[in-house]
């Protein structure tokens, strides 16, 4: 496929990219032993994008024969021309280091069969409902997603990648005072289902932990609304890095007016905070997501966003880099064959410090230890929020009763200045995340535990 794309890349009349892109996924979900979904999907095709007169023209079709490739190239040119060079004064896209190479992370093991996938769920469901008879509901899902791409650009980039990820999710619900209480957790990450340890007998301790945390949550109480001293465990530090800082520092949003544009070179965080968006599989090579060349053909390299508390860099496409005088580092990504590349994060993380988790908890008289997040959102003001599904009160330096679901928020560039401790143990969040911004996209998020002040919602 790559050779065929390369042959056609010469047909462009303006700089651009030709991409063959297929997304493959499997999904099995079970609720109380009933299979609600059981199948797989394949969606793919070709797209062409070119940059002409400050305008991107883009076209995509769900096939990859020569006629389809010729058609999308012609339509992309026609689309760009249709608005009559509305931005003739726009700068040329920034030059970037061309990416290269084949990055095939396909498993060497035989692919999991439908029978194996269903067997995992049936085994887990039986085990959970037999072991924990107090549960009102059990939801289990096993999913995989792989993105396979070939990219040829008019500037000579030729690259291929196959990047898989798979996730097991278990949600349990129990009756409690004040209504039902539920809690979920995920396992997995980089690789295909056959690369993971999802066999029920290997998950006993993990399931016991989830059930015990649910039991404590059912006995727990509402948070007291307001500003509190908290310890955010690594799962929340990862989503903090992504939502609160990462989005605010995406250059397309900086051009739209993000507050980050006013703070380059300034202290926006405690000097203990160094935060970046990392290429490959991140600094430790263990993130749930891998990327080496972006969808504009730029070689991916690490971007240090905050260095010892100082805001240093933004995340760029070639277009935003030209507008802001920066050098692109491979952040232009597309989710599907029919999607254009957008400025996106990759593996975004706070780097580890030197503090111990026990010391952080011990330093708080009255506050919260927050362990797991649900969803999150960011804003151009750097105001962020994320849902918290699992956490505990801290009283006199010790873990107390569990809390019910809540939401935390803050203004990142204020909140990060309140960080007093950064943990010495780095972890990637759960089994990886999905980010929504016109298109969904797979991302990695990680960090150590941190101690800071944050606003908590609640009725207590």
């Amino acid at each position, binding site marked *: 496929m790559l050779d065929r794309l390369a042959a056609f890349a010469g047909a462009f009349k303006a700089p651009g990219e030709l991409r063959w892109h297929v997304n493959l996924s499997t999904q099995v979900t079970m609720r109380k032993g009933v299979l609600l979904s059981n*199948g797989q999907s394949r969606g793919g*095709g070709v797209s062409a994008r070119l940059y002409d007169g400050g305008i991107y023209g883009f076209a995509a079709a769900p096939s990859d024969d020569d006629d389809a490739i010729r058609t999308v190239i012609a339509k992309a040119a026609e689309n760009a021309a249709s608005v009559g060079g509305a931005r003739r004064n726009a700068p040329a896209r920034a030059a970037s280091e061309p990416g290269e190479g084949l990055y095939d992370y396909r498993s060497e093991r035989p692919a999991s069969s439908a029978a194996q996938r269903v067997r995992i769920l049936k085994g887990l469901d039986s085990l959970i409902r037999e072991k924990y008879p107090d549960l009102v*509901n059990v939801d289990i899902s096993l999913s995989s997603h792989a993105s396979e791409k070939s990219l040829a650009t008019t500037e000579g980039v030729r690259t291929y990648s196959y990047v898989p990820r798979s996730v097991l999710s278990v949600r349990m619900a129990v009756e409690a005072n004040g209504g039902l209480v539920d809690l979920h957790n995920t396992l997995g990450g980089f690789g295909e289902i056959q690369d993971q340890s999802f066999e029920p007998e290997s998950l006993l301790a993990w399931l016991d932990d989830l059930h015990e945390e649910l039991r404590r949550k059912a006995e727990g109480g509402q948070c007291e609304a307001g500003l509190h001293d908290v310890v955010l465990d690594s799962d929340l530090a990862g989503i903090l890095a992504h939502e609160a800082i990462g989005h605010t520092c995406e250059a397309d949003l900086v051009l739209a007016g993000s507050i980050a544009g006013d703070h380059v070179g300034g202290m926006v965080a405690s000097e203990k905070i160094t935060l970046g968006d990392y290429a490959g599989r991140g600094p430790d090579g263990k993130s749930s997501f891998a990327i080496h060349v972006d969808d504009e053909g730029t070689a991916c390299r690490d971007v240090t966003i905050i260095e010892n508390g100082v805001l240093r860099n933004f995340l760029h496409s070639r277009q935003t880099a030209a507008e802001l005088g920066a050098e692109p580092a491979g952040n232009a990504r597309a989710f599907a064959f*029919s999607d254009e590349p957008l400025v996106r994060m990759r593996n975004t993380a706070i780097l580890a410090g030197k503090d111990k988790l026990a010391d952080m908890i011990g330093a708080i008289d009255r506050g919260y230890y927050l362990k797991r997040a649900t*969803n999150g959102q960011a804003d151009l003001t750097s105001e962020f929020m994320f849902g918290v599904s699992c956490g505990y009160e801290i009283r006199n330096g010790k873990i107390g009763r569990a809390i019910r679901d809540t939401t935390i928020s803050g203004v990142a560039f204020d909140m990060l200045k309140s960080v007093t401790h950064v943990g010495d143990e780095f972890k990637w969040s759960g089994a990886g995340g999905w980010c929504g911004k016109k298109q969904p996209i797979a991302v990695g998020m990680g960090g150590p535990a941190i101690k800071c002040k944050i606003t908590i919602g609640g009725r207590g």
Partner: protein
Amino acid sequence: MTALHDAAVEDFCGELVALALAKGASAAQAQTRRSRYFEMQFDNRGPDLVRSTENEVSALTVFRDGKRGAASLNGRSKEDVAAAIEAAMASAEAGVPDDANDVADAPSLPPSRHGPESADRAQMAAGIEAFLSRIRAEFPLLRTRDCLSSFSDADVAFANSHGLRQKERRAAYGFTAMFMAKDGARTTSLNYVDSSRFTPFVDPFQSAGLERLMIETTQSLDRKPVPQKFDGDVIVTPECLASLLGPIVNALSGAALFAGTTPFRGKKGQAIASPLFSLSNRPRDPQSPGGADFDDHGVPTRDLDLVAKGVLNDYLVDFFFSKKLRLPQTAGASNFHVAAGDMSLEDMIARTKRGILFSRFSGGAPNAALDFAGIAKNSFYIEDGQVRHALEETMVSGNFCELLRNIHAVSAESVDYGSGSYPFVAASGVTISSK
């Protein structure tokens, strides 16, 4: 296979069913959606992307010995079709038998057509220019980003092994605007509208409350927290109500009833909301692009009064859960409408002792009990009947069941987004706090 490649969309999905039966399925269904999409993306400086895509996605579900398997594919290559059928059959073979696994028996509708034949791109471009001209003239502090003027056109065909056949074509224009205000170092939150209709957005300001939102966004440059934590009123705006309804209608679904996790269990025929609140699902509304004539099982959709004057009339039970729960099927596609009331927004504000105009909820996913907590974005503090100031870093916490019961006013004004329409709704008993 050449014949299959060139077949009409309804013949192609019928052929997928036939191929699955030939491979040993006891029953099968297929839905094929052929879509064409065109968009112009723009910001204050004009268009920056013109994008057109085509796609065709077929979802095949097969049944064997009471078990179900599924596969979807796009395109029609011989290899992909064969792989999808094989994958669906393998999934069914591996599945769990269930009496609810079956294809539907339902009447086949005449093919239908909704919306225009083709996009009027000149009108779309004129709408963008009108939008940007007005922003330049009246809202100089507003910055727009990733705004879209779009046209989507899809043929959807359905076939199953009981002889059910459906087909509809639905085309609509879309308009999405994302914007914020910036004045020096002062920056507001992002605000946005997203709406669709059958005619071009020649003047986007005439739709979806856009002018009100742009005025409010500019006013949000000067923000303050609430003076102190209090339990008060919220006047939920139409755009906020659209997002808050999601968890509520999920809790009314057959899936939630089966899980046993919804607080609305056993509440059919009972009051679950204020008598001022009525919610209906109108997938067959001929004026609304957001509907559908039939669902993913080929069953014709129907309009339903879900909550009438506060009383829960019915749940949203789709084909599978109607069989699983032995309840009538009531849902399959959604297009929600909350009935307008008789009070003006101005009067609702004037009657508010202490509360907020709640314009956007940015919060964690509500739990099974429907407790919620999140940030009130683009929102305003109200005291003694007057809007006092825009809010920053303000959290709103409550419970959706209580919120529905505590509704005490619904506005006469309502906003139609094309995929639902909503008024302003005032309710009490929400905890509002700042840091």
